[in-house]
């Protein structure tokens, strides 16, 4: 069953159409990249998929179930996990605690009043593994607000992975990273590819073209093109609307 089907999605902010009749699918194990200029509505799309804002019209299906009106926490519980473009972590918690919270969210109810969570192997074990996965194990005991920017981005990713999602929504995971950090993340995403269905919003075109199975180009809330990397590269429409300038510069 197709993990994600978006049909006719609409979202207006006042007079501005941030999402304008968008259709999009993410197939099982597919890495689907969404690119587009600033303000195209990429983050707004992810916010609607994760349930943080409600669409005005349209439909979102996850594995055949209509989740258009499901609350955000339930979407996470059924396997949709996201990261944020602007780092959003529990700043006063350690890196390990941050990821342990992600694990705990998916480990049944949290009405446990007596045993210390810090010594709960069922939480710290998978949390440590997720930190390892993103290459942040050595910073497990550092407070999140003391991590470098790139490390916070890695933490974002670890939290998203620790919920064992089926669909990953990644909002510019490499934003603001150094060249080397970005390369690490690209390598990580390449390793994750195929095991998860991934919707990747990213500005780094090299990364996108290296990783994506399919690419959707978003402009003013509309998908002006959708296809394989080769199709997108070759599309005159896309070159004109979006890639054109960059290619010309290069």
């Amino acid at each position: 069953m197709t993990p994600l089907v978006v049909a006719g999605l609409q979202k207006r902010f006042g007079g501005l159409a941030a999402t304008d009749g968008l259709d999009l699918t993410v197939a099982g194990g597919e890495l689907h990249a969404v690119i587009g200029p600033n303000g195209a509505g990429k983050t707004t799309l992810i916010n609607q998929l994760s349930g943080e804002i409600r669409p005005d019209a349209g439909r979102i299906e996850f594995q055949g179930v209509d989740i258009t009106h499901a609350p955000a926490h339930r979407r996470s519980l059924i396997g949709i996990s996201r990261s944020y473009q602007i780092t959003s972590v529990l700043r006063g918690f350690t890196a390990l605690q941050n990821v342990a919270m992600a694990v705990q969210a998916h480990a049944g109810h949290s009405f446990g009043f007596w045993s210390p969570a810090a010594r709960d192997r069922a939480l710290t074990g998978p949390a440590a593994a997720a930190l390892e996965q993103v290459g942040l194990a050595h910073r497990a005991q550092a407070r999140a607000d003391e991590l470098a920017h790139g490390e916070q981005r890695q933490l974002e990713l670890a939290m998203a992975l620790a919920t064992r999602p089926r669909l990953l929504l990644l909002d510019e995971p490499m934003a603001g990273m150094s060249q080397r950090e970005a390369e690490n993340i690209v390598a990580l995403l390449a390793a994750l590819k195929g095991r998860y269905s991934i919707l990747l919003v990213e500005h780094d075109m090299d990364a996108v073209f290296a990783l994506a199975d399919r690419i959707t180009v978003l402009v003013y809330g509309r998908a002006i093109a959708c296809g394989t990397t080769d199709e997108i590269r070759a599309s005159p429409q896309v070159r004109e609307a979006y890639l054109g300038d960059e290619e010309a510069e290069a």
Partner: protein
Amino acid sequence: MRDARRAFPVVFLGLLALVPVVAHLTGEPYYLTVFSRIMVFGLAALGLNLILGFGGLVSFGHALYLGIGAYAVGILSAHGVTSGFAHLGAALAVGAVAALLIGLVCLRTSGMAFIMITLAFAQMFYFLAVGLRQYGGDDGLSIPARSAFGPLALQDATVLYYVIFALLAATLYVLHRVVHARFGMVLQGCRENERRMIALGFPTLRYKLAAYVASALICVLAGVLLANLTQYASPAYMQWVVSGDLIVMILFGGMGTLLGPVVGAAAIIAIEDVLTAFRLGLPWGIDQVVNAHWMAILGALIIVVVLTLKQGLYGWLVHRAARAG
């Protein structure tokens, strides 16, 4: 740091446990009353701090729950019900229902709106209590005898002191477990970044509501004890000033720790006591000035502590001890 954090609660509770002995030896039963009061307000501040310090929810209406506890004792006593179990049971039951309903409304808001709406609920109950003519209205009602808990003779000030002490110590321990358990981590996570907690999969409202009710019930318990201590139930217990005092105690002592608010309550009440009874025979009528303007002096002290000690008085003490040792 670890050791200081472990040692301080033991030292602090040890000193509290010795107060009746000192009061006895010096023949000053007055100390017993002051420290009973300190512990009752310390318990209330501890309860409020569960949601304020650990949940980031600034309730400006927790005096309401002190009032529910006190009035449960007062009203039942007025009808000839002297059983402490009935007092406590009724207080907790009414408190739980009130907190559940009020919490459900208030927790839909956040930030400034939450502060204002909790205040509004407390004011409603305050005026409700003032309107209870048959129970003393404005003046409140005096309670002829303390709650009867089987063989526990609360009428004896020392017994009452140790009952309050035991309840405070037990609450401290239970909350120590709670804030480090899964539940407490969710609460603290909501304080850090609730939006992220929801995205992680937590239905945050139910956890915040449970914490709000627990926090309210600790204040209800403090209210029952307060009524027993003063043998009085008054609308004044529910005034917004009392809610404010609890917040000040928390800030003064430090909201990052469990013991902080209790230390804050001790400091504020002790300072208040010293300033209002200031008799050092200083020249130029300084004593009288201090007695008359103690609130201004206390206010200045609070400002200094809150501005200079980020972790409050207790956090500062622990930090110093950790560096010295």
